[in-house]
């Protein structure tokens, strides 16, 4: 179980607990449940790399405590 931090630099900073084999799509659903935005409206990036929905966190090498950027569609 890892904990990922998502920050949108406008006031929303969320810590989400998830498994390493969860996909980005699942992570978006968890973030949506915590922030109240819709899951389809969320975009997760790291600098200019937009993370795709169907790839798992372990494949993206996202480890415990890592920070991701939260943007909106």
């Amino acid at each position, binding site marked *: *179980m890892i904990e990922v931090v998502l920050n949108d630099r406008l006031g929303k900073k969320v810590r989400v*607990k*998830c*498994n390493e084999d*969860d996909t980005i799509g*699942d992570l978006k*659903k*968890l973030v949506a*449940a915590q922030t109240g935005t*819709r899951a*389809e*409206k969320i*975009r997760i990036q790291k600098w200019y790399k*937009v993370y*795709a*929905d*169907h790839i798992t966190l372990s494949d993206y090498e996202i480890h415990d405590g890592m920070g991701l950027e939260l943007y*909106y*569609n």
Partner: protein
Amino acid sequence: MANRTDPTAKNIRGTNPQNLVEKILRTKIYQHTYWKEQCFGLTAETLVDKAMELDYVGGTYGGNRKPTPFMCLVMKMLQIQPEKDIVVEFIKNEDYKYVRILGSFYLRLTGVDSDVYQYLEPLYNDYRKLRQKLGDGRFSLTHVDEVIDELLTKDYSCDIALPRIKKRWTLESIGTLEPRKSALEDDFEEEEDKEEDDQAMVEVGEKDHYRRRSPARERDHDRKHDSRRHRDRDNDRECGRGSERERSRDRDRDRDRLYLREDKDNGRERARDRDKGEDREWDRRDRDRGRRRNRSTSRSRSRSRDRRDGRDRRKRHGRGSASPPRRHDEDGNSRDESRKKKPKIEKKDDGTDHPDPEIAEANRLRASLGLKPLRP
């Protein structure tokens, strides 16, 4: 200039009609080439030509959420705000299904509740296939009536949050709408007649059937709702109690009450459910008042006996710890240990009974989303 709403356009739901689409999506549409090239200077007539060229329905797709031409045309309609007749023409036309969907989508966004139901429900009978572009760029198959159902029941479609409309039974109870006539009603009646004949043979069986159904029916349906009349009919149809339909509704209600009185547990349960909130409040207050009057000087309203005893004991005897007293079982084990033995028997699959409350909460959320529980 090109993106300004027509100055003669009316405000929809208190705001510029283009604001029905969210800011981010709106900006994306304005920057899209289809909008800039094809949708420039469109009028209601030329819009029809563009609409006839539509190939698929959809919201946004791809990593950077490109809008579909369908979205751009919806935006254009919001911008020029065509007359209601034109929109109804779009919906009524039989030849071009995408024009139909475009018109119904626009009506759902801008129309009055009764109009929405009135014009969109006939489209339930249109079974033609549609091409739909999903969020990840793939195409999927859907049908006209599925899309209409989505428009009427969900509050989000094609990446646009649909405005809230009143529920159908609200409009029916006001009288603005007639109760819905399904196209399959004739088929239902036929089936019902058949079942009626079958059941007429087995009279005794039917009585039991009726008795079994009645308390559940009472429990499930809120009597105050006018729609009960409606829902009962549906249920009757399904269980084939057509013969009861002929008798008056009052007799039905009286019989239900009779059965309820017989079936005491159910009645009590119902009353209990309804008054649960109030009763608990009163009980708590009475209990506290009683306690206070008799013995304790503590002001805590908590019902935990441990806490109360601990405080009082300390006040009176001046001894003992501040923490609640640990109760011991006969074996000499503390209560917590004996409690721990029980959860092991009732272990759940999705980890919602995890000892750590945070993780249990997270697992509950994951279960509701359809994900597997957290693995440490």
